[in-house]
């Protein structure tokens, strides 16, 4: 390798390493702003200032979905396994919304301890399997839907 090429090799190598290091530093600094949603555990730890809008993510707890028969109002409880938060929403829910499904609710925490969402998105997990297989699993007692048992609520703990 000629000296000129060696010099260029070093320069290009330094460029890539330098950009990588700069990006790593920038990402670390922005870490807390990169999260799309926070969990009920984070809410319990009070990482969010009050009256601030944020996105709450977790699973819809089985048996907590209540729909108002006369309007689009719906209420359900979001859990991450450790903590829970009741959510109210007035609008159209996505196709994937169901009990045990991951959801992301955008809104703010009310004085009443409930999370008032103005948008609810379903979060799909990374599992893909044929419908017939899922039905067969259900018949043999291994349902695919995450079955979250009701745990202690945030209010009970306080």
């Amino acid at each position: 390798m000629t000296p000129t090429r060696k010099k260029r090799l070093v320069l290009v190598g330094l460029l890539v390493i330098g950009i990588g290091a700069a990006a790593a530093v920038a990402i670390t600094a922005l870490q807390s702003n990169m999260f799309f949603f926070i969990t009920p555990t984070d809410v319990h730890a009070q990482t969010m200032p009050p009256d601030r809008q944020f996105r709450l993510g977790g699973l819809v707890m089985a048996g907590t979905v209540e729909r108002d028969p006369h309007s689009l109002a719906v209420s359900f409880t979001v859990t991450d396994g450790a903590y829970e938060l009741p959510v109210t929403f007035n609008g159209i829910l996505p196709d994937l919304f169901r009990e045990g499904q991951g959801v992301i609710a955008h809104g703010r925490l009310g004085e009443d301890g409930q999370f008032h969402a103005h948008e609810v998105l379903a979060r799909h997990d990374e599992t893909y399997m044929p419908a017939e297989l899922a039905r067969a699993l259900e018949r043999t007692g291994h349902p695919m839907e995450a079955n979250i048992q009701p745990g202690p609520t945030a209010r009970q703990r306080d």
Partner: protein
Amino acid sequence: MIWKTIKVGFHRLGSPPNFYRLCQRFSPWLWGGFFLCAAVGLYQALYVVPPDYQQGDSFRILYVHVPAAWQAMAGYVVMAILAFIALVWRIRIAEIMAMMGAPIGAAFSVICLATGSIWGRPMWGTWWAWDARLTSMLVLLFIYLGIMGLYSAFEDKRKGARIACILILVGLVNIPIIHFSVEWWTTLHQGSTIRFFGESTMHYSMMPPLVWMTIAVKFLFAAALLDRSRNEILDQDRRRRWVLEHAGVNR
């Protein structure tokens, strides 16, 4: 001895007339491979594979979305390697190929973003969300467009290519960010289904079309890259003797 053979081989490949003839020979096979794999893959994806237990038939869009996303990223890595070679060794063919890859990668990025958006509307409930995965993929598209713009902004094509090659290497940092975004942060986008290390969370009966489509887009990328590079060489060398001879023009 072997090293010398490889070196001579590369030097031969680096000469435009030889590269042109090589592309000409390989191109039909690559296109053939693409059409064959895509036909098998699409048939399986649409007719053979059973519907998903949660999403029904909507999940079938992943057989276009996932291979396109992978190729948008893999194509970028190929371009980065070519850019590295171009910057250190100043090989003209590598410069041209690195530049010609950008519109193809941009097209795959657009396919990935569009199919993801179409799937996201009924499944997530929104066309778009500014989460880390979606945003970093959009940034990849902008980097591709930036490379194309920078290359075409210079009168001297070799100068433009070298400067755009630096941009390719700068943008390389985005590739691991796209890949790990779903692990480092919370995102609306789900985590990786297909894992090279560890178990994939897709039932094996749904895998074959994904494999076919992934191979198909590899062929498509290679075929488009060689054809585009061949055209560019012909255009840049249009006053050189080998092109005139190739075209049958006698001066």
